C-alpha cells in the first residue's frame, strides 16, 4: 500500500483514496499543434525505471490534484508538492539527490 502526502489536506493518504494521473509536467498541446507534438502529449511517456514525478488526485478526499516524486523500483516516496508547481521544487530534488547519488535531476 502506498501512502502519499496530500498537500491540500495536509495528511498522509492511503493508495485507495487516491488516483494516479500519470507523468507530471507534460507540455499540453491543443488542436493547433503538429501531429507529432500532439502524439507526444497524448501517448509518449518517459516511463522511467527509477525516480519519477507524477500527478495524483485525492479522489476520496479533497478531490484536488497534487504532484509526487517516487522511485518506480522500490516505490519509495520522496514527497509531494503543489499541482501549481510547473517544475519539481529544488528542496525535493536535493532530498532525492541526498539518497540517490546517480539521480540526474528532472529531465524534460
Amino acid at each position, binding site marked *: 500500500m*502506498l501512502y502519499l502526502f496530500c498537500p491540500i489536506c495536509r495528511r498522509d493518504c492511503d493508495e485507495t483514496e487516491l488516483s494516479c494521473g500519470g507523468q507530471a509536467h507534460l507540455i499540453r498541446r491543443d488542436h493547433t499543434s503538429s*501531429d507529432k507534438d500532439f502524439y507526444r502529449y497524448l*501517448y509518449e*511517456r518517459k516511463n522511467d525505471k527509477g525516480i519519477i514525478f507524477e500527478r495524483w488526485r485525492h479522489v476520496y478526499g479533497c478531490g484536488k490534484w497534487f504532484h509526487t516524486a517516487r522511485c*518506480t523500483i522500490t516505490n519509495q516516496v520522496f514527497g509531494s508538492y503543489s499541482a501549481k508547481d510547473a517544475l519539481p521544487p529544488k528542496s525535493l530534488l536535493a532530498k532525492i539527490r541526498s539518497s540517490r547519488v546517480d539521480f540526474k535531476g528532472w529531465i524534460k
Partner: protein
Amino acid sequence: MKKYSISSIVTEAFRDNLGWEKAWAKPKPKKEYEVIIVGGGGHGLATAYYLAKNYDVTDIAVIEKGWIGGGNTGRNTTIIRSNYLQESSIGIYEKSRFLYETLSQDLNYNIMFSPRGVLMLCQTEHELRAMKRTSHANRINGVDTKMVTPDEVKEIVPIINIDGPRFPVLGALWQPRGGTARHDAVAWGYARKCSDYGIDIIEQCEVVGVKKKREKIVGVETSKGQIKAKKVCFVAAGHSSVLSELAGFRLPIESVALQALVSEPIKPIIDCVVMANTVHGYLSQSDKGELVIGGGADGYNNYSQRGSFLHIEETVRALVETFPVISRLRQLRQWGGIVDMTGDRSPIISKTPVEGLFINCGWGTGGFKAIPGSGWATAELIYNEEPGNLAAPFSMDRFSEGRLIDESAAAAVAH
C-alpha cells in the same frame, strides 16, 4: 538434438535417466550476428524460432538479462484464447491459438496445451450486449465462439454461483477451443528448438547500450561485451521503455506491475477457464490442482515485480462471491510481473526511428496467448524489413495517425 519420444523415455528408464542432454546450449556470444533478439521470453524465442523455420535465418543471438522462463512467460496465468473484437487483433491471436494446437508436435516438446474452453461471464446488461457484439465479430472472422445462457454456464461450471445477488450471471461468451498451456514449457520448448537450429541463447547478459551509426543500428553493448548485428529486435515486455531510451527514442508505453496468485492444491473442481470482468477476477485449475487466479494491475507505473495486497483482496473477494466453494482455501503463492501498457491496450510490432531496429512490445496484460503468432509476425517483419498482414495494423505510427486498435477484450479483465 535427441528427439523426445516414447522410445527415448523407455531407453532412459533402463539406464537411470543418465542419457538426457541439456535442452539448450549455453554458448559464449560471438562478435557478430545477423540478427540479435533482445529478450529471451516466449515472444523473443518464438521470433528467433520462426526466423529460422520460415526464413532459414539462423545466425541469431537471443540475449536474455535473467534466465529462460524467468520473466513474464513464467509469471502469467497461462490462458490461451482469441475471442477479440477487432479484426486485426483476431488475426494475430487466432493465428496464435491455431499454432498452439500443434506446437507440442512442432517443437517436439510437450507444452501441455489443454483446449479446455474459456468462459467470459457477462454480469451486467452492458457487458452482455458488448459480448454479443464480440461473438458476432468472432463469427464473421471465423473464430469459434458462441453466447451461452446462465443455465448452460451452470452446466459447464457446476461450482459457479449464477444468482448474484449483486452481479448475477446473465450469460457468457464461450470459446471451447481456448484453454491453457504449461507456460514455462513454451519458453523451454522454443529455446530447445532454437538451440537445435544453431541459434545462440545467451543468458545472464544485459543490454546496457545501443550502438548506432547515423541512425542505423550496428550492434548492442552488453554486460558480456559488445556484439555487432545487422538487425536488432527489442522484445522486452515491461522493460521496453528502458531499452528504447538507450536507442534514443520514447515509446507510447507505461509499465505497471500485474499480479497473480495460486491457492493450495485441491482435487479437480473446475475444468475450464472462467473470467469475470465486472467483478474483476479470473480462475482456472492447474494440473497440480492449484487454483490459478489472476489479479489486478497496480494503478500507477512501477517496476517493483511485487503487486499490492489490496489488489489480492479485491480479486479474491470477487471470486469468493462467484465461486462460494473456494472461500476456505488458503493462498499458496503470489507474484508480480511488469507489463507494458499501450494507450489502446493493443501491442506494437513495428519498425522504429532507428534503421535496422525493430520492436515487439505492448502486449500488456495478455501476451502469453499471443506468443506463437507474435513470433511469426515479428519474424516476417525482421526478415522483410516490412510488416506482413498480421503485423501491419500494430505499427507504432498508429498512435499519431489515429488508427488505434481499441481492444476492450485485450485482457481477461479490464486493467
